[in-house]
């Protein structure tokens, strides 16, 4: 990249000259790396919880039982401390609410980041918290575990944690799939040395085995960046020529680990896997679906800045209203009171529908940012009942931004709201 004015400015920043000296003064003796696999008992427990609540993606593995090539004992590192803190609950009824809905608010520590996975809301800052069914906090301090894999002479060091560490968040919910017939789940791991690899993890024994044992990175063009389940096999995505013009190449590996098949997916757009199906969106927003012959077919020709998220795409309809296309049901939900010309449809800053839950009731969260005032102008949550064909819109105070939401059970929707300096956990109870 040619020099630009910002590059010049940064290159002139002055820092102390003694960095090397300071590091060496504090340097301890190096530890000999251990070559054993270890995992926390609580991580195993969390994995068991995850397996029981994970989305069904129709993942099927090969028909014959898979032989586990090696089993590694589960070890516990460190200790897990638990403290339970009673949260202060506020009862609040919002006058704009639709009839038949009660809202409970609970104020949260504003510096803690919360999100939903593993069956409940979790938050972490320096520690790790969980919001329980009784609206209490469980404070848990987790140690991290180093897991080493031998892969053709190279060692990948990874950590399976739910905290941000210096190696990054290793596992994300979308990369963990329903367990296969052998009681294993596919886990996509981020390796700090660069790239990803994947293993099958047995939640009961804690054993790991390589998901791609026959293949090395030399068998793929570029460096492996993700491994995901698709159409009964695995899709491996690699990154070629990291800078400045990096692009992705995709391979599909079928049952029995036959030859990897290179997938013909254009470089310019974005692909995503939802419900065991690959979708591709070109830069204009046009949506394509990959058929059983691994060919892309045009699925929806809306021009939109939104990106398909959990099978939902926010679009402008033919009569100028805001609509949400649902790839799960092939339906278009139209919001008759929202004029598309008055809002911005955009995944980052505008109207963007997100699905929370996969049953007949979907919560659609639409938020809109006023970029002039730099605040949230309008937030709406819609509860879509597909059986009754009803969309119930709930109005929320506009100075709060939706940060996350999930169904807690059939009648209760949990939502995390944030303003500039406050944070709330809100539960909507529907009659």
């Amino acid at each position, binding site marked *: 990249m040619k020099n630009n004015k910002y590059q010049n400015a940064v290159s002139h*920043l002055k820092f102390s000259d003694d960095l090397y000296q*300071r590091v060496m003064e504090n340097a301890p003796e190096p530890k000999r790396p251990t070559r054993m696999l270890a995992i926390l008992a609580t991580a195993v427990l969390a994995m068991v919880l995850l397996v029981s609540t994970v989305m069904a993606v129709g993942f099927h593995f090969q028909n014959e039982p898979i032989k586990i090539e090696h089993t590694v004992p589960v070890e516990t590192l460190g200790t897990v401390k638990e403290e339970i803190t009673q949260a202060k609950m506020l009862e609040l009824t919002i006058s704009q609410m639709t009839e038949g809905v009660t809202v409970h608010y609970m104020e949260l520590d504003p510096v803690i980041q919360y999100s939903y996975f593993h069956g409940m809301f979790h938050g972490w800052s320096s520690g790790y918290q969980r919001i329980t069914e009784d609206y209490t906090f469980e404070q848990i301090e987790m140690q991290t575990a180093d897991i080493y894999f031998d892969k053709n002479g190279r060692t990948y060091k990874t950590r399976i944690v739910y905290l941000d560490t210096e190696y990054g968040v290793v596992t994300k919910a979308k990369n963990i799939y329903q367990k296969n017939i052998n009681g294993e789940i596919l886990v996509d791991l981020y390796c700090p040395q660069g790239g990803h690899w994947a293993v099958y993890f047995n939640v009961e024994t804690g054993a790991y085995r390589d998901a791609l044992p026959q293949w090395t990175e030399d068998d793929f063009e570029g460096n492996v960046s993700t491994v995901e389940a698709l159409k009964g096999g695995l899709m491996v995505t690699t990154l070629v020529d990291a800078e400045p013009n990096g692009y992705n190449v995709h391979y599909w590996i079928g049952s029995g680990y036959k030859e990897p098949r290179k997938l013909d997916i254009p470089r310019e757009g974005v692909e995503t896997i939802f419900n065991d199906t690959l979708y591709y969106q070109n830069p204009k927003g046009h949506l394509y679906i990959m058929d059983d012959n691994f060919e892309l077919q045009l699925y929806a020709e809306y021009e939109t800045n939104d990106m398909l998220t959990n099978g939902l795409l926010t679009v402008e309809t033919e009569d100028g209203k805001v609509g949400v296309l649902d790839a799960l049901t092939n339906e278009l939900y139209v919001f008759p009171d929202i004029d598309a010309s008055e809002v911005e449809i955009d995944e980052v800053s505008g109207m963007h529908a997100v699905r929370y839950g996969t049953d007949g009731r979907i919560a659609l969260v639409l938020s809109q940012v006023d970029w002039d005032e730099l605040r949230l102008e309008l937030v709406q949550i819609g509860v879509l009942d597909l059986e009754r064909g009803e969309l119930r819109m709930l109005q929320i105070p506009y100075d709060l931004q939706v940060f996350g939401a999930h169904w807690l059970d059939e009648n209760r929707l949990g939502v995390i709201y944030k303003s500039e300096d406050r944070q709330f956990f809100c539960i909507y109870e529907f009659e």
Partner: protein
Amino acid sequence: MRYIGRKVVSKLHKQKRAANLERVILQYGHGVQSLAFTYLKNRHDAEDIAQEVFLTYLQKAPSFANAQKEKSWLMTVTVNRCKSFLRDIRRSETQLPEDLSYLPKEEMDLMQAMLDMEEKYRLPLHLYYYEGYSLAEIGKLLCCPAATIGSRLARGREKLKQILGEDYYEE
């Protein structure tokens, strides 16, 4: 085979470690500190973070397939250290504005405008225009979809243009 005593082996090993660390600091030291500075907006904090990052490098002694992966590792560790640092800071603390008066005026204005921006724009701008990372790589570093990074780059650049009156990223 000639026998080399333990102390000599240990000394050779230490020298090798030191030489490798020196190489890494020379090669990436300014980049790590600049990224930390962009995150934390404070040079002293950035220097502390850089020290922690290279200390971690020394302790973990990771091996890399190539220079690109080594750099990626250092940047990832830096980003995560900065995140942890910001989470530990009490909200009541106020930071003194960073003194950038030693920079030429045009560069000072640009740098100040960058520091005044929200983190979600500031970091992608820095990683793209200073480090030269692609959108996909920035997405991995910041745990964000590449399309979101693209959107933030465009908006950040637009905001700077409005503040400064011209496009400072022109090459």
